[in-house]
């Protein structure tokens, strides 16, 4: 990877921080707990990295690490989205 390519990624990072900041300051306190668990589920996005490592052709150390990472990340993703949905299902106006 070239330093210039890295800088490209830094641009994306900085912009995404801005987007995140603006959107999250708009979430009302009522929804802060689901926000916490929902954004936590998003952080399970490393599942993508885990899939790449766990799916390598030969079974190497990399695969084992990848498998462990995959299990961890899947727990984070599936657990996070489900529990958030469970909470949000309860928010009702009558």
């Amino acid at each position, binding site marked *: 990877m070239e330093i210039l390519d890295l800088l490209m990624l830094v641009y994306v990072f900085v912009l995404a921080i801005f*987007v995140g900041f603006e959107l999250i300051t708009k979430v009302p306190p009522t929804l802060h707990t689901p926000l916490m668990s929902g954004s936590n589920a*998003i952080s399970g996005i490393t599942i993508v990295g885990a899939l790449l490592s766990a799916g*390598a052709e030969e079974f190497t150390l990399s695969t084992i690490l990848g498998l462990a990472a995959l299990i961890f990340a899947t727990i984070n993703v599936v657990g996070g989205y489900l529990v958030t949905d469970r909470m949000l299902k309860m928010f009702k106006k009558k």
Partner: protein
Amino acid sequence: MQIVSYLIYLIASVLFIFGIKKLGSPKTARQGNMLSSLGMFLAVVVTLLDQRVLTFEYIIIGIVVGSAIGSVMALKVPMTGMPQMVGLLNGFGGGASALVAFAEFYHLSDVHSALDIPTSVTVVLSIIIGSVTFTGSLIAFGKLQEIVTGKVVKYPLQNPINVLLFLVSVAAGVFFVIDPAQIDMLFLIAGISLVLGVLLVLPIGGADMPVAISLLNSYSGIAASMTGFVLNNNMLIIAGALVGASGIILTIIMCKGMNRSLMNVVLGGWETAGGTGAAAGGDKAQKPVKSVDPEEAAMLFDSAQNVVIVPGYGMAVAQAQHAVRELANVLEKKGINVRFAIHPVAGRMPGHMNVLLAEAQVSYDKLYALEDINDDFNNVDVAFIVGANDVVNPAARHDKNSPIYGMPILNVDYSKTVVVNKRSLNVGYAGIDNELFYGDNTLMYFGDAKDAITKLVNEIKGL
């Protein structure tokens, strides 16, 4: 092919953004969470089509095992256990980031002879942040679940040791970047970071855990972004940055609400925080309080026009949200106007009370935020405090020496009558006495919230 997957990663990123955007209103929040999970699904599917993925057996095992564990956890956890749950999930996320960085290192060093500098830097950062998040979150979970001591743990040379460990891991990181063949350095870094996670969270008081968890949540987002840098994948960077921003904002909100600096929380500042308040017990006995029994309380409520219920951490402990909702129903049937006043840091995590009341099916338009109801307490006949303490402590308004001075509080003392339900005169989270209890218009209604309110409801029904 790669173009298609880049495009779909872009779509997934946009779905995450929309998902968080829609969390901005209770009406669209659930849909937002679904959009976000759809984004995740797309990301997974596209990755499976990547040319690097050649065998699926381990993947299937991983996904099945992970999904099973995740679903069970998500469906079993009680609403009062949310803080722990988020902490635990968060730890898994951090752990996964560190493991991926390792795996990627092995993979890349199989392919190329040496890693280039940006890659090795991000591998090191991923491992540090991921490992700290992993053990830190586990300790936070343990403290909340009361497996690990909830006390503020202090030991000699605490900060120097942490700084030293951190410097050692940075030094090891530099050595690794200079010569990426030195895999021992990576293990050293991982080991130190795992220890550091424990040491950093252990000193923090149990009641401060939500702040720690939120901060670690932010770290796990940053760890995901780092992984994105390693894999040269924008989607990971974006998703990670969103989570990083979310975690840090919630942390700041909590610190502001508690009127403390982040440093103070992280360094385990308040030794009394979450304690039983023996310290403040001294002059408590002297001052007189008025207390009521269920019958008297019921009569008070019965003659009111305007009632505001103020829930606090005690409601969560007692799991009294259903009883509270029952109370509101009974009063409303009598034509009494019932509202809920929710302080931004009532309970132990942001939005804690809202989730519990939502679970008990209280309509969210009956929940008023501090700034929306605070000017109206003059017109309130009965303010009913259920297991709240610090968030209604008038000292925050006028006592410059109080640790919570300056923190915005609910002005319940301005209402005609204040009824406070808690088990004793003990202190709350901030470990300080509350003059509200001794006020002229305050009546204490002692007892565990669930029992006491159930009794109250029965009395009111009987009137």
